[in-house]
């Protein structure tokens, strides 16, 4: 009996994980299906777009700036081992647009947005505001989740595009001022090596990450437990699951796009 108990615990954990994945998949399906069915709530969508897109710009921009700069230093130091310092502009540009822009941008949005969505909707749940929505003939999923998920799916690629530009600029600034690159040559190298698919693939990743971040925020908020502890747990779960899903989706999309 005692020999089997760790196996039983493992089985319970696996079943619990699969059940959670199933519930999330059903929730995602419902959100997507409601995207195409009226009524729509344009005011809530615009509000979410400003909250998720506009107010995330500083944090995404700063992350990209420092990442671009650090990347230039690393590539320069690594490249020096086999006299390939000249690849700095191309590697910074490709690294930022394909991987670091979308992944780090997505993670920063997950930290900022998934937590705030989960806390807001979770608090609405424990203070009966979601029940109040139902009694006011408003579908909470349509009113709360759909505008936020749509806004994040559209806003995060734009944030990624801005982050890519700022990251490349960070690499350029370090390249020119610290590593003695010629400014014009650095920029020319960046433009020559960068292909449009490098940028587009990163933007598609950004849209997928935005969708996942808002979906996790809404899902955990709407399934929040009671009281302050319940909302706290929902917020934590939203950020953790959004971050893990970003990494998983990043691998799958990279495999799909580049292998």
């Amino acid at each position, binding site marked *: 009996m005692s020999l089997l108990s760790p196996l039983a615990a493992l089985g319970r954990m696996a079943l619990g994980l699969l059940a959670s994945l199933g519930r999330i998949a059903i929730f995602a399906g419902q959100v997507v299906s409601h995207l195409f069915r009226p009524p729509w709530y344009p005011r809530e969508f615009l509000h979410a777009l400003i909250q998720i897109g506009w107010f995330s710009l500083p944090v995404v921009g700063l992350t990209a700036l420092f990442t671009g700069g650090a990347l230039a230093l690393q590539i320069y130091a690594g490249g020096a081992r086999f006299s390939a310092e000249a690849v700095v502009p191309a590697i910074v540009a490709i690294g930022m647009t394909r991987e670091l822009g979308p992944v780090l941008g997505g993670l920063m949005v997950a930290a900022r947005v998934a937590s705030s969505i989960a806390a807001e909707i979770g608090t609405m749940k424990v*203070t*009966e*505001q979601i*029940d*109040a929505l*139902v*009694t*006011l*003939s408003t579908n909470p999923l349509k009113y709360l989740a759909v505008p936020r998920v749509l806004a994040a799916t559209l806003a995060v690629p734009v944030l990624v595009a801005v982050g890519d530009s700022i990251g490349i600029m960070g690499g350029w600034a370090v390249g020119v001022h610290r590593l003695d690159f010629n400014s014009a040559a650095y920029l020319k190298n960046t433009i020559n090596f960068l292909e449009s698919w490098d940028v587009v693939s990163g933007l598609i990743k950004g849209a997928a990450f935005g969708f996942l971040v808002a979906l996790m925020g809404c899902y955990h908020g709407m399934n929040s437990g009671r009281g302050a502890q319940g909302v706290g747990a929902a917020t934590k779960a939203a950020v953790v699951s959004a971050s893990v899903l970003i990494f998983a989706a990043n691998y799958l999309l990279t495999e799909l796009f580049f292998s």
Partner: protein
Amino acid sequence: MIELRGVTKSFGTNHVLRGVDLVIPRGSSMVIIGGSGTGKSVTLKCVLGLVRPDSGTITLNGQDVTKGDRDAFLAQFGMLFQGGALFDSMRVWENVAFRLQRGALKKPKAEAREIAIEKLRRVGLGPQVADLFPAELSGGMQKRVSLARAIAADPQIIFFDEPTTGLDPIMSGVINDLIREIVTEMGATAMTITHDMSSVRAIADNVAMLHGGKVRWTGPVGDMDATTDPYVQQFIHGRAEGPIESLR
């Protein structure tokens, strides 16, 4: 008329409702009393469809509440929640006019605001509160705003969940009188759940007492004091000794 027949509901091993039978005639005010955890809120949520009963039927004017057009069904209802449940990201008037700015009952913004201010006036609040946020109001004012929201679309049925919880006795009296006046003047069917005996006497035409997941006693409010049912007597007099265990 709202009619519940043999309604049961369990949450895991917790059997909250064990066969509730209750009739609320059209235009009457029914108050459901009972100790904490006896299933009063679950009963109310079952009628609204917020909780799905495990068995039994709930009908509104002869129609099963779980079937038919849900929006049309909910459009007949107004509800005052225990904590107010006001949307804290919206101004007071937007809360009151929520139903009037969306869906089938949508009206132009100016008209919706005008109706909201009129409803606020009806619950004793001036137009100066219309542009405040709920967090800027006292508990009593929030309850009144919530009451104004419940009556904004002139519903035929209004539910009140613990309308006086957390209020001082004077404000409780004000809310009780408001509820009685509004229900009478609108001719609405009302269902209230409360522990507060002053609410029961002020609001009720009929009273039902829930205990152990069933309706223990029901009758006109005038008969409540005269009943010999020991459960009702213990509850309305607030005695620690009696058939209802004080430690639950």
